[in-house]
């Protein structure tokens, strides 16, 4: 805004670049030279972490526990017993939810034991027929928001059963029906706690940062050791992954509640809890609900990784299908995941928006029409299933539960589509791929690897200083120092090269698509739907076609990452541009600016802080996917994280590598966030 600032920054940046190139060219590249690479002082850190975790889990405070299975006492560390108890109670809840839908014996086992089940074959809880769940979903959708949601719910449940994915889908659904509420409640509680106490907020902030940026498979091994393998362990990993956005958005919402509203509440004589639940949270509803949306999306985005540590359901079926290159089946399963996400998201939002009608004067029947309808559906569906048991043979009752993988399949169609894409585009793309790798990516990688460590520090800390101030520069320096002292600096540079390429491409695409679509309300809604789809559709599915087109190369990793990382850039650009007040837009138009001028000189500057938060998320998403790219084949940090899962010191190595990734993300996050805050202040936006 103030004219002299911009030249100043330009001068500072040119100075920084000159210094950077001088350093880059004159530092001798030998491993003995500290200016070239710092010595790996933290080389032993992975082992220290490993030993500490080991001590905590296997040695600290052992208690003697009688194990009836082996008829002997075993010493088991206290901490692990506690975590195991937490996870087994979680398991009971998940299995209860699952058996309400799919039937089974485990809930009965909780109250009796396996011997009882073995002796009493009748003790088996029956599954709900899929027709009943479908009917319920339609009624619920209609009751919550009307015909649109009813159709969506009906379509989704029918799709899932017709394609023979009923059982795995319901397994995944029951998993999410537990993890999502737990994440929401936990996030809400932590958010409120942080809102009430500054020190809690200060302590929570770095933890949330790390939990959000650390690649999730770097903590799979500790999760297995602490919580075991199975739905409970997967649930814990999912909750760790899904809770942070909820905490953040709760805190943000509460902070934005105007003081007048709080005062009004206090003057009306609210107690502490009344103030919180009747005044603060309802006022912060918008942000809290975005948090709920993100929790649902994240829980389903974890489906595949969760199956690595034992979650039953769609995730593991997806990996099995992909491993024998059944892309068609993979796509069908992916669509199931997206449908579950969208229905849950819409239903939870509709439920939250539902106003209680205190004044309705309804007859007894009207008041209980919904429960009566649900019971009627249950009865009707059960009768249908009973009739079905006479109609079908071989124990396959299509009116009860469509057996897994026995539904219709569109796999041949998708397979043909993939083949067609390959035949049509492969040879064009081949030259592009070759050009990209030899002319762009490899030179860029070599450039990154050719930077002396001092030059990298100068560049990053200098940028932080110019854009975000001295304090940010120190924080960025601290993050980088950790990586530089570890053994993984070169690998981190490779991660950084891919991530920065991804971020540049994603940001350009996201900003362009976002600003174009923001011009029309319909286009905005459509593209936001695409964003939801891309965020929950498991990336593992399009990794395969991408590999077939571009080979096991950095190009494949980068393309898969760009698809995912473009989502937040697009989303935030649209939201930012569309939230520019109409009054300001009209004021501009009246002053006689053209549409283009209005976009460039009014809307963009005003939406800038919000857009920058989108770029910030793009950095985190991009980094995340580059690490997932290890499943294609990379030579960066991700490859080692993947390897660490089965290493002897895997826990420590995995966590150290995960921290390196998190710190790259946090360093960039620090610069962008502080910069956006400053701009916001300059623009008088808050």
């Amino acid at each position, binding site marked *: 805004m103030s004219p002299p600032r911009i030249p100043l920054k330009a001068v500072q940046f040119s100075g920084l670049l000159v210094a950077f190139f001088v350093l880059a060219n004159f530092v001798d590249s030998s491993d003995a030279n500290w200016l070239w690479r710092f010595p790996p002082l933290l080389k032993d850190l992975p082992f220290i972490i490993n030993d500490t975790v080991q001590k905590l889990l296997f040695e600290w405070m052992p208690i003697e526990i009688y194990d009836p299975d082996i008829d002997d006492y075993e010493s088991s560390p206290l901490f692990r017993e506690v975590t195991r108890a937490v996870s*087994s109670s979680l398991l009971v809840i998940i299995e209860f939810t699952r058996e309400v839908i799919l039937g089974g014996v485990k809930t009965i086992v909780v109250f009796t034991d396996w011997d009882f089940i073995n002796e009493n074959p009748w003790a088996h809880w029956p599954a709900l027929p899929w027709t009943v769940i479908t009917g319920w979903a339609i009624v619920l959708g209609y009751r919550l928001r009307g015909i649109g949601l009813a159709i969506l719910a009906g379509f989704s449940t029918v799709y899932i059963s017709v394609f023979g994915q009923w059982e795995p889908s319901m397994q995944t659904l029951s998993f999410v029906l537990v993890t999502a509420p737990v994440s929401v409640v936990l996030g809400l509680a932590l958010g409120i706690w942080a809102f009430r106490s500054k020190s809690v907020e200060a302590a929570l902030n770095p933890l949330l940062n790390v939990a959000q940026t650390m690649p999730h498979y770097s903590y799979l091994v500790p999760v297995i050791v602490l919580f*075991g393998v199975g739905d409970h362990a997967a649930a814990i990993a999912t909750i760790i992954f899904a809770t942070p956005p909820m905490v953040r958005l709760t805190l943000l919402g509460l902070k934005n509640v105007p003081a007048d509203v709080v005062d009004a509440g206090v003057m009306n004589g609210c107690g502490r809890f009344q103030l919180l639940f009747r005044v603060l949270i309802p006022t912060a509803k918008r942000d809290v609900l975005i948090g709920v949306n993100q929790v649902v999306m994240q829980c389903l985005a974890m489906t595949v990784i969760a199956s690595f540590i034992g979650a039953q359901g769609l995730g593991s079926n997806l990996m099995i299908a992909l491993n024998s290159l059944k892309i068609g089946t993979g796509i069908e399963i992916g669509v199931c995941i997206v449908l579950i996400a969208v229905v849950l998201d819409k239903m939870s939002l509709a439920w939250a928006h539902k106003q209680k009608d205190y004044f309705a004067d309804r007859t007894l029947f009207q008041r209980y029409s919904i429960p009566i309808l649900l019971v009627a559906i249950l009865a009707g569906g059960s009768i249908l299933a009973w009739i079905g048991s006479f109609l079908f043979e071989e124990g396959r009752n299509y009116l009860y539960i469509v057996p897994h993988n026995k539904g219709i399949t569109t796999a041949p169609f998708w397979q043909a589509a993939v083949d067609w894409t390959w035949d049509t585009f492969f040879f064009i793309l081949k030259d592009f791929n070759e050009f990209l790798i030899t002319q762009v990516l490899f030179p860029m990688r070599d450039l990154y690897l050719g930077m002396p460590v001092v030059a990298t520090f100068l560049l990053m800390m200098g940028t932080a200083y110019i854009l975000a101030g001295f304090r940010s520069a120190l924080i960025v320096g601290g993050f980088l120092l950790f990586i530089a002292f570890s053994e993984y600096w070169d690998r981190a540079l490779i991660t950084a090269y891919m991530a920065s390429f991804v971020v540049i491409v994603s940001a350009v695409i996201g900003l362009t698509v976002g600003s174009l679509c923001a011009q029309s309300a319909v286009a905005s809604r459509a593209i936001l739907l695409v964003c939801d789809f891309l965020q929950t559709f498991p990336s593992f599915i399009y990794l395969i076609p991408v590999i077939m087109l571009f080979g*096991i190369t950095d190009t494949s990793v980068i393309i898969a990452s760009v698809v995912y990382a473009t989502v937040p850039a697009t989303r935030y650009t649209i939201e930012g541009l569309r939230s520019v007040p109409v009054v300001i837009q009209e004021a501009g138009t009246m002053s006689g600016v053209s549409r283009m001028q209005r976009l460039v000189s009014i809307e963009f500057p005003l939406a800038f802080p919000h857009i920058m938060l989108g770029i910030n998320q793009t950095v985190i998403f991009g980094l995340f996917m580059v690490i997932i790219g290890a499943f294609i084949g990379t030579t960066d940090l991700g490859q080692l994280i993947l390897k660490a899962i089965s290493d002897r010191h895997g826990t420590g190595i995995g966590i150290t590598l995960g921290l390196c990734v998190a710190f790259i993300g946090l360093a960039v996050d620090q610069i962008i966030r502080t910069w956006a805050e400053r701009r916001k202040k300059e623009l008088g936006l808050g």
Partner: protein
Amino acid sequence: MKRHIKGTLIGVLSAGILALAGTAYADSNEPIKIPIKNWSSQIVMAHVIGGMFESIGNTVEYVPVDNQASFEAVRVGDIHTLHEVWQSTMQNAYYAAMEKGGLIDAGTHDAETLEEMGVPNWVIDQGLCPGLPAWEALKDCYANFATPDSGGKGRWLEGPLSWHGDVMPNRIKGLGLDDTWVVKFAGAADALWAELEAAKKEGRGTVIFNWTPNFTDAEGFSFIEFPPYYDGCRIADGGDLSTTGCGSPKGWLKKAAHYKFPKTHPQAYTIFSKISFTTPQIGSMAALVDLHKMTHEDAAVKWLADNEDVWKPWTASVLGESN
């Protein structure tokens, strides 16, 4: 919520009391947990073994788990058995878990496995590398195996780094092929198959890591013949660059179990330790799914029905003991 917690407590307590009263010799009624990983033969075999356990009255639960994570899971007892431990790709994880304690060796299958670099048959048929499968042929044909990122060298596509570390790069150096060939690590098995499919479509040469029995056997795959393996030829076993050219050993295929499994389910463990499949048997399990397009569960039912003479003797011994 409160009710669940209370229920859990009562359940845990009563389970404990009743388990105390149980006898030590019969199998516990608790379900046996068998891992489901992500390749066909493993999943079918899981259901085949599960079917055997069920035939003597046990309850079985199938738990999906990542291969690399499964060793830790057996160690801490969240799954009971591992029925396909491949020497060359999994021995590191296997021995690491054994060393940490909790995982025991439950015998070896009859099947000998071969895990080696190789080429799909059509690479040989099209004459992309005359002289294969002898490894010396690689000296001259590397250009047909170049990829955009290999800098003109031929590319070996090796499995993930976690499978055998630096064995393949060292082998290339040991054979003196490092001027003309370069090793690229794939991230996961499905990346290998995607590469195989893509190379076939393009008609381009590819040298990839593969094993047998595997679903790729159906399309034809030839392993390259390297200098024979001997103990100590690899760097980890005391070798140096003059010996690392050696090929892969004929590998074992082992079974592993959680250390409490023999105590909790003595009969099932006895069966499990006796199980020994041959290469054709494992191949036939995979083929039911990969070629005949059956579901894994149906394939296992069919296999058990067709091969009673193979597995009945294993379960019969236990049934005899208990009567």
